[in-house]
């Protein structure tokens, strides 16, 4: 089990406070975060792997404080961004996945085997040696996800991973996320994706204003936006 605790977290950018004291304890396997543009969803997501540290308050992942143990936290928490082009580092598909394992201490053959297995699992085996820029948007996002999963994180945080994708690719990425053994925190505008989740957080104006099961949280969000 993975436990994320936010303890009275405030985040300020310059003069402006964008999160106003969020306290949460997340232990569910599937947690969704929804809310309007600019409400603070990405800020909340980035807190979970220490990309952003709180201006005040603390974030603990399995007891590790993201402020002091950022490196260990990031090893536990994989992060998928909205734009896969910004996340893919190496020019070809298999090389990008292998890059995640460069400090794993595995031999070159072991790395190649892990990479091949992971690419296969995500339907990218045929593209292993292709340049990453020739993949479709959906395949790029699957590659980004594969490069995160190959390091076996315990929690995967995905910040609007399907926002740039068409319907079919959205489905493909959502299906992969749904099939993961890992805990997932998914930020999304696609309310269809959250119906099977254990818990939905609605963020508005830098606060978590609703925290409930999808059947209750999604209608509450719709009313809020009406």
């Amino acid at each position, binding site marked *: 089990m993975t436990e994320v605790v936010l303890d009275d977290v405030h985040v300020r950018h310059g003069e402006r406070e964008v999160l106003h004291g969020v306290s949460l304890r997340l232990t569910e396997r599937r947690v969704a975060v929804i809310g309007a543009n600019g409400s603070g969803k990405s800020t909340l997501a980035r807190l979970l792997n220490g990309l952003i540290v709180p201006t005040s308050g603390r974030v603990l992942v399995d007891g590790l404080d993201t402020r002091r143990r950022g490196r260990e936290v990031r090893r536990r928490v994989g992060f998928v*961004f909205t734009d896969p082009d910004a996340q893919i580092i190496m020019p070809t598909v298999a090389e990008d996945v292998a890059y995640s394992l460069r400090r794993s201490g595995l031999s070159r053959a072991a790395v190649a085997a892990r990479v091949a297995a992971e690419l296969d699992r995500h339907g990218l085996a045929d593209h292993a040696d292709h340049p990453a820029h020739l993949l479709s948007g959906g395949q790029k996002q699957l590659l980004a996800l594969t490069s995160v999963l190959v390091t076996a994180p315990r929690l995967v945080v995905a910040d609007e991973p399907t926002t740039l994708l068409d319907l079919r690719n959205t489905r493909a990425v959502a299906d992969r996320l749904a099939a993961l053994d890992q805990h997932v925190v998914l930020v999304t505008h696609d309310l269809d994706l959250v119906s099977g989740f254990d818990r939905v957080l609605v963020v508005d104006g830098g606060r978590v204003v609703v925290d409930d099961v999808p059947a209750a949280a999604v209608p509450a969000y719709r009313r809020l936006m009406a």
Partner: protein
Amino acid sequence: MSPVHRLGAGTKLAALCVCSLALLAVRSPVGAGAAVVGVLGLYALARLGPRAVWSQVRPLRWFVPCVVAVQWATLGPLAACVLTTRLVALVALAGLVTATTPTSLLLAALERALGPLRRVGLDAERAALVLALAVRSVPVLTALAGTVRDAQRARGREHDVRAFAVPLVVGALRQADALGEALRARGLDD
């Protein structure tokens, strides 16, 4: 697999260095012509056709006319042609190395080559990463430039340089920001 493909990454990088230095010494039209013939010969040896050559030098297609114009005005037509030919040959040669070698092997070779410089404070792994990112950025920025140009066309401003440059630079900076964040998320910073 052609002989060029089979050659070790380190060997190819070393050969590229030597050839680049030799190219820099070229001052005559004959030398420039010989360089072009040599580079095309290497492409042929790698069993790569004219299309492969074009895809390597294509990113220069806007840059070269500008360089020629400036050099023509300052150094005269002959020097402009020689210098530009040299530049294109150099890019084509570097492109040949990257086209025939997996990037990871190139980076490993580079890391080995830069290893001794650790003593003077150079982080070889980081230098190799920068190179990988540069290679990776070419298609990303090309796509960005395409998007910006389309948007410009849609608004009927295709000849406005500023309307092209400003969103391109802003987009590139935003991309760089996002990449930095992604690097940290993937633990490359630790």
